[in-house]
């Protein structure tokens, strides 16, 4: 599906339209309010906006969904970041006695950026991505999603396309939001296999016994590796790549047939090329600000949309709608959609996004939110059972 040509110079015209008629405020509020279970959860949440001319404002907070809407429609931010839930309203932090204003809770987040893979990509570099190297993202998501669910027991994971060259994961479980800095850092390190800066050539070392987590991750990589590395990336075809692969093989093995020592070097090579590269610092901090879902990426115009993992293998970052496309679709809805709508729906212009390509992403977001609501209900039932209330 072609996206309308996006020009960042149009943002000042497109953003007001986006925030007035397309941004899914009620779902957004439903998410961040978390069922209203904890007092002032939404009110104490920090937002930050990047406005025109790179003006950056922090410590924004809002009492109600309406207040949030009005403010966003007034300032039309280029970028929106979500921060932590603090001990007091962030917009009043200057009035609080120094030392008592503290970040208390936040979702556990992960940021996977394609530039961190530059040393193993031969098709693109820096901010570019293509369908060939996007497979790295698919691998990363599968590995991390499995580990966060099966190993850590988290259930409510929201994967979001960042709009250009990476993905974010928001772990929204209550237990995740309450994690300490030390715990977040431990989770991130558990999930890290690539160790070493520029001065380290061989970045993955496997030793017996192979931890179940690594085995599971290898399963995913092995599923995707043959096609990815040997065809898409042509690892053994290009000389530099061959050198890179050989540099990883211990010297004494180079000239001998594979012996039992170094039995894992093939697996190590696969992992060094494909295993997800996390920025631990993003995940560690409770007060770290991360780009919000449904924010616009100013350089590409793409909306940061939630990703349905059931369709992960066919996800195409280049098919994600841009702000220009969906603004255009407002006036010219996609064919075939008109007949399905009831009269009622046609009248409700709050649900304008339903006329656009944004619809399916908001629908998936709704399902995600339903899942969390279901969990909360389950928890309440369990609690009242324990207390034998009616």
């Amino acid at each position, binding site marked *: 599906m072609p996206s309308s040509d996006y020009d960042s110079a149009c943002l000042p015209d497109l953003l007001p339209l986006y925030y007035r008629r397309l941004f899914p405020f009620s779902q957004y509020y439903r998410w961040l309010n978390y069922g209203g279970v904890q007092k002032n959860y939404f009110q104490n949440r920090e937002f930050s906006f990047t406005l025109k001319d790179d003006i950056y404002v922090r410590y924004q907070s809002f009492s109600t969904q309406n207040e949030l809407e009005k403010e966003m429609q007034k300032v039309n931010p280029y970028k929106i970041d979500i921060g932590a839930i603090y001990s007091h309203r962030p917009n009043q932090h200057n009035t609080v006695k120094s030392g008592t204003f503290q970040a208390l809770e936040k979702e556990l987040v992960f940021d996977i950026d394609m530039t961190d893979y530059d040393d193993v990509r031969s098709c693109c570099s820096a901010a570019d991505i293509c369908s060939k190297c996007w497979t790295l993202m698919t691998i990363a998501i599968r590995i991390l999603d499995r580990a966060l669910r099966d190993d850590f*027991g988290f259930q409510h994971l929201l994967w979001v396309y960042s709009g250009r060259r990476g993905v974010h994961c928001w772990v929204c479980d209550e*237990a995740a939001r309450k994690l300490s800095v030390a715990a977040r850092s431990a989770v991130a390190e558990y999930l890290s296999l690539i160790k070493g800066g520029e001065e380290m050539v061989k970045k993955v070392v496997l030793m017996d*016994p192979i931890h179940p987590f690594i*085995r599971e991750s290898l399963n995913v990589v092995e599923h995707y590796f043959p096609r990815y590395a040997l065809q898409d990336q042509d690892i053994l075809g290009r000389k530099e790549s061959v050198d890179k692969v050989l540099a990883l093989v211990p010297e004494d093995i180079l000239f001998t047939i594979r012996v039992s020592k170094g039995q894992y070097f093939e697996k190590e090579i696969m992992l060094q090329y494909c295993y997800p590269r996390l920025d631990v610092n993003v995940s560690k901090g409770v007060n770290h600000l991360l780009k919000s879902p449904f924010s616009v990426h100013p350089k590409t115009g793409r909306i940061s949309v939630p990703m349905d993992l059931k369709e992960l293998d066919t996800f195409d970052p280049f098919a994600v709608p841009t702000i220009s496309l969906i603004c255009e679709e407002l006036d010219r809805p996609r064919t075939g959609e008109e007949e399905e709508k009831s009269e009622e729906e046609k009248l409700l212009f709050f649900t304008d996004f339903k006329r656009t390509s944004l619809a399916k992403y908001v629908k998936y977001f709704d399902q995600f939110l339903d899942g969390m609501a279901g969990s909360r209900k389950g928890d309440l039932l369990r609690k009242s059972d324990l207390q034998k209330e009616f």
Partner: protein
Amino acid sequence: MQFPSRRRKNNINPQTELYGHALQFYGQPPLENISLSEFETFAVDRLKLLKTIENLGVSYVKLSEQYAKKLETEFKNLNFPYRPDADDRKIQSGPSEYEKRRKDHISHFILRLAYCQTEDLRRWFIQQEVDLFRYRFNDLPPKHKLEFLHRNNLQYDTISVEEKKTLLDKLVNSSYAVSGITVEDQDFYKVPFQDALDLVRTRKVYLKAGYVYIPHQDIVTIVLNDFRTRLSKALALTARSLPAVHSDERLQPLLNHLSHAYVGQDYSIQKNVGKISLEQIDSLSGKSFPLCMRQLHQNLRESHHLRHGGRMQYGLFLKGIGLSLEQALQFWRSEFIRGKVDADKFDKAYAYGIRHMFGKEGKRADYTPYSCMKVILSNPPSQGDHHGCPFRHSDPELLKQKLQFYKVSPSGISQILELVKGMHYQLACQKYFELTHNIEEASFSLNHPNQYFIESQRVLGGGKDIKREMDTPQRSQDNAVAKGSGAAREAAANAPQGLAEMTEDLDSFFQDA
């Protein structure tokens, strides 16, 4: 347990109970009165112990034989309890087991007062106390370990035999210490992962649905975590009662000095501001920078950029050697502009960070340059990074090439690589210093990149050595005790003098370290 040589009779029963065991969680503060001299001595002794633990922890693998032996010696010298089954009925010279435990108890709480005030102090104190606890818990015989667990309410569930069978493969593959036999013989505990972060972080345990499965033999990590959490909370509470403590004039100077002594020199106070010109930096980087900073400087010149970790480590180092804020801004700006960053972007995105380093933004904290310990242990470099300690974080092959490029002799290189293999990173850097400055043996013990710079300038400038304190730790301690009790005996007016002498000894002890 019998304590026939108890010097002081305790009327309070809980107190007696308290010292019935060698190891404790320090849950209850001491309730008795003590003299000022004991107050001072106990605190200083414990501080020395913790400082030893810090140093040993960097030079040796924790709990290895050498580590244990050296630490045991220190316990003996400073009269802290180190063997829970010590037979007190044997005639000993010196304090009894009971007295050692009492000292352990009291000194811990005194240091809490000194170390609860800032984030950095708390972090340091907690780290050393945890290491101390780890050593002592490990020393306990298995029966005592179990006893300790139950006494302190760490009740975790064990998994059934069926579940063990189902998980057998996974359990065995999660840790090289766990064999099929271990699974059969030992109880496995199901613990929420938040209570076992160290095991999770290093992936040394099987994790499923948010629970880790720990064999009984590994329960120490859980205990440590619990200890750490409790201590952290306690310190936060202690900080609240500080104003009351500080109003006591007898205590305030000592507590202040205790908290400043831990780090020795932190190079945060800038001497020589402005004495270094930007033009000198290139040549200085070759002559007087430690390898980590030389590497960062070179990468900065080559790619006209450094990532955040590198900017912090190198930027703070430069601040420490005397660069002013204006110079720093000019330095970074002129380099970044040569790369992909235009002047505008630099002012918007990077200048803030540099001013932050100098304490001119945000919470206005004046950040101190990183010590070797910090560079080696925290924030390891990842993709695209050049910071860290080259002896710790570089591929040995690459390190060798780099040393060859910097014209270090082949025999020197092998010496360095040997030290790296033994994980003696700071000693390796010190050897690098000796080789590049053509001296037999460095007159200092390297623990800070800025220290390296100062020592290098000293050597290159003509070798004026500072007068070194010749006191051994043992003698310092005796001096401290003698002077401490002297201060108590004299009137309050004389107390400052006694304190000054003792604190001088304290300083000299840490210079030697």
